[in-house]
Structure formats: C-alpha cells, structure tokens
C-alpha cells in the first residue's frame, strides 16, 4: 500500500456490546471490534487493518483512478435516478362502499355525487397517457373504491395498449365482485391489492363492520385466489399498534389464503386516523418490540416449513436496499426522493399530487400539497419547492448516520406528523423507524443462526444460502 493511500469516508454504529458496524458511502459494510473503532478514531490503523480495508474497497491509493471510479459508481448506485413519468396513481372516484375507522382519504359516501372523474378529467388523463414518452407504464387505481367505476378503469386500460409493457394494480376492498369486475381482473397484466387486517373478527372490527359484510369480503377473497392463484393478489394488514393482533393468528390469516408477503403497516397518521387514532403519530417501543417478534416468528416458521417462504414486506425492502441498490422501485424509501417526476397521483377532481400521502393530507384539510392539475400541468414552482428538500445527502444527522446510504427522505411524512420539515432528523418518526429497522436487520445479518441466514437469503431472492452475509474484521 502506498504512503498516499486514503481512507474513504466511513460511519460507525454499535452492534451490541462487542462489535460495531462500519459503513462506507457506497453502502459496503463490515463489523469490527471496539479496538478497531479506537484505532480508526485515533488514526492508528494497523497493517492488518489497512490490508482489510484495502481489500474491501474502503482504502485506495491516491493514484488508483479505477478504485476512485468504482467508489463514485458505488455512491451513484445508491442515488435515485428518476426517469420519465411512467407510474400513475389514479383516483377515478372518491366514493367508497365501506367506512373504515382509519380511512386515510376521508372518503365520500357510495351515492354522493360529484366525487367521480368528470368527462373532461377523463379526457385529460387519456390525453396525458397519449403524450407520455415512456415505453412502459404502471397504473395503480386507488380510491375511494375504484371498482365502483369499472367503465373508467376500462377506458384507461384500453388507452395503455400502445405501451410496450403495461401493468395495472386495482386497490380494492373486494366488497363487491361483479361479473364486470371479474372480466377486468381476468387480464394477465392486472393485479389486485386489498386489505386483510387479520382474522375475521379483527377485519370486521376495523373495516367491514359486521359478520355478514366480513363474510362477503372473505368469500370474495377466497374466490379471487381460487380463480387466479395467490400471486395475482397482494394484501396489507393495517395494525392498531396500541392493540396489535396475536402474531401467529395474523400470520395464519395470510398463510390460509396462500399469501406469503405481509406488509406490517401500523395505522397511517392520515385522514380519519388523525382524529380517531391520535396515538398513531409516533410508534412506541412496544410496537418496535412487536415488529421484531413478528419477523423472528416468520423466520422460525420459514425454517420449520421450507416449502413456503413468508416475509414481512417492508423488512425485505430495507434488506434489499442494503445489498441490492437500485433493484426495487419502492417510492416511499429512496434518496433523493424527487416528487412529481417519475410518478404522480391524479385525484377524482383532476388535481395532481406528488404522493398519495400528499393527497391524504390535502383531503384532511391539513395543508394543500397539490402541485397542479392534469389539464394545466404540475411542473411548476410548488413541485420545485418540494424538490429542494428531497434528499438526505446534506442533512447533518444523516451525514453522521451509518444507514444514510440505505435510507431515504419523506418530507410529506414529516409534514403529516409535525406540520414542518425542519425538525432535526433524529426527532422524526421516519428516522426512528428506520434506525430501528436497520439496527434490527444488521443484528440479524451478524447472528450466527442458519435459520436467520436462510430467511434473509430467501428475502434477498438468492438461489442459495451463503455461509455469512456480512464481512467481519477480526
């Protein structure tokens, strides 16, 4: 190693009592003993330390242009490169035939007039689709309950035939399942997203409100799974974090329908939930503990029955952000998180929002986060203003955080919870949640347990199970 060799930027964070995690700006990481941290801080690295750091790409010679380029490439891989608009969340109607206690958009009643797209709005959305330069399109139909307007869904889907690739997701409560809806669902490029809060009693209490409508929903859920298979459908539970369901019962509710991915989602501090579930603003230590027990139980079940792999969806997303940058297009966790660029939300009245949460906040009357409308455009000053704050790269707390390369920025979440975006990062729920989840992931990565490695490898979509998932400096 030349005398001019340079250490690339590193950040550290304890992993329990006997080792600390070290992470480079490109996201490469290793665990090291406390003595190494002292040597690192004291500029007193040993020859062995330097050899290890060099081998792992954390130390390069001043003359090593290839090494410097590799580092820059690694950093770039961690950054979102938002392309042309190719992902639309469409709200053809705000009407809904259910009234959930934590509805996030303050939905309209099933027969209320004035909450569907007008002919002019539909024409403007179709015109927008015609003008998109992208070769692929993904459309998510939200609501309200979008299946109340199958005619609008059909019109949009038909207009997307010109794209090389098209994918549609209908987010539905599956309360009604007519022949007309099933005909739409029969498309191979259409997926169904629904909510399943746990067993029948929990789902009924939170959403459907009685035995008969709950039975109707569960019957419809069974019917679509029998017709299409579980791959066609994804389901999310919304959890009251102050009273979460029994873990095995919740997993069982999903496993019963062949659903392998469970997105453990506490009530979002939006819409009706702001009044009816006030304590959903911050998650408690008890919730974090529940989350860890849930993931550990899933790991245990996966190891016991290797014919099926269950996962907690957000855990997998965060795990893949560590090992496979750029593989996922999860727009709620990315950095920078540009708004109104590669995806937008078009509401029932043609208003354009940068995210669905921005729509929820605006609907709740908290703050108007609309950035324009589908007829006159949205690439103006409001979008520009939001995008000045779309990165975690220059935040003083994030700059000192080992997880910055994996983490993201969600200023709409900050506005929703605190009404401002300038709170110190570490005082926000977004930061606390991600510190917890990344701490948990790295503890698991360095646990010497074949059952843990088995599940982590499956969630990373690896063909086999490596002997270790994390490098160690000993």
């Amino acid at each position, binding site marked *: 190693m030349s005398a001019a060799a340079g250490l690339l930027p590193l*950040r550290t964070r*304890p992993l*329990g009592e*006997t080792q600390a995690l070290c992470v480079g*700006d490109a996201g490469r990481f290793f665990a090291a003993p406390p003595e190494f941290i002292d040597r690192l801080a004291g500029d007193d690295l040993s020859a062995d330390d330097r050899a290890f750091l060099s081998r792992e790409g954390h130390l390069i010679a001043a003359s090593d242009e290839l090494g410097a380029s590799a580092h*820059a490439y690694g950093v770039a891989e961690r950054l979102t490169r938002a392309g042309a608009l190719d992902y639309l969340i469409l709200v053809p109607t705000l009407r809904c035939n259910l009234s959930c206690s934590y509805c996030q958009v303050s939905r309209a009643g099933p027969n209320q007039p004035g909450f569907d797209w007008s002919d002019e709005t539909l024409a403007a959305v179709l015109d927008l689709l015609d003008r998109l330069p992208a070769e692929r399109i993904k459309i998510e139909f939200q609501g309200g309950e979008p299946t109340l307007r199958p005619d609008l869904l059909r019109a949009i889907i038909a207009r997307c035939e010109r794209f090389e690739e098209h994918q549609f997701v209908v987010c539905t409560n599956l309360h009604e399942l007519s022949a007309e809806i099933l005909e739409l669902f029969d498309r191979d490029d259409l997926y169904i997203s629904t909510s399943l809060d746990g067993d029948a009693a929990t789902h009924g209490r939170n959403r459907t409100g009685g035995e008969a409508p709950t039975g109707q929903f569960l019957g419809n859920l069974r019917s679509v799974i029998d017709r299409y298979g579980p791959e066609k459908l994804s389901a999310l539970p919304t959890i009251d974090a102050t009273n979460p369901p029994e873990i095995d019962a919740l997993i069982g509710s999903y496993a019963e329908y062949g659903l392998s991915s469970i997105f453990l989602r506490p009530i979002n501090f939006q819409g009706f939930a702001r009044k009816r579930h006030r304590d959903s603003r911050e998650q408690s230590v008890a919730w974090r503990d529940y989350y860890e027990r849930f993931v550990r139980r899933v790991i245990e079940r996966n190891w016991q029955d290797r014919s099926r792999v269950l996962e907690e969806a957000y855990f997998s997303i965060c795990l893949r952000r560590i090992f496979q940058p750029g593989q996922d297009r999860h727009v709620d966790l990315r950095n920078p998180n540009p708004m109104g660029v590669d995806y937008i939300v078009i509401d029932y009245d043609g208003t354009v929002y940068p995210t669905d949460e921005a729509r929820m906040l605006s609907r709740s009357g908290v703050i108007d986060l609309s950035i324009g409308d589908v007829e006159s455009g949205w690439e103006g000053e409001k979008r520009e203003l939001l995008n000045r704050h779309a990165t975690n790269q220059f935040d003083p707390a994030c700059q000192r955080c080992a997880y910055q390369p994996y983490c993201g920025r969600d200023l709409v979440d900050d506005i929703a919870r605190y009404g401002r975006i300038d709170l110190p990062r570490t005082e926000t729920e977004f930061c606390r949640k991600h510190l917890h989840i990344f701490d948990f992931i790295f503890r698991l990565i360095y646990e010497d347990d074949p059952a843990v490695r088995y599940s982590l490898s499956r969630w990373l979509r690896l063909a086999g199970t490596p002997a270790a998932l994390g490098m160690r400096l000993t």
Partner: protein
Amino acid sequence: MVSLIRCDVAPDAQALAASAAEWAQAFYPDVDITREAGSVALACESRGEGELRLIWRSALANDKLFAGGAAQRAAVLDALVR
C-alpha cells in the same frame, strides 16, 4: 437497573467530545449523556456498560470521520452531479 459509565476527555479533545456527546444524545435518546469537566458520563436503563462504552467510542470515531471525510464526500458528489 441503571448502567453508568464515565469516560475521560483529554484537554485537547474537549470540542470533539462536545460534538460527539450532542450527536450521541440525538441518536440514542434513551441514553442520558452528561458532560463534566474532563469527562463524559453515559447512563441508561436498557443498555449495559459495554454497549454504552461502545456508543461513546463510536460517537467519537464518527465525529472524527465526519470531519475527515467531508471534503472527499463533497468532491465525489460534485463529480457525480457534473
């Protein structure tokens, strides 16, 4: 039971320790961090002494690494933007 550790701070490391203590407090709100003349004390109900000691060592290292790596980090980002 509360775990408590006290770490000495050399006279020429006071500024570094002040910054490290501030950031450690932000990242670990459950740890009570107090600066005194020539030392820093960390106390916590849910973490052992070994972990508290490592939190402090990491905080010191992080602050030094942050200062040392800032120019390099900025240069890489600047080159990427260009």
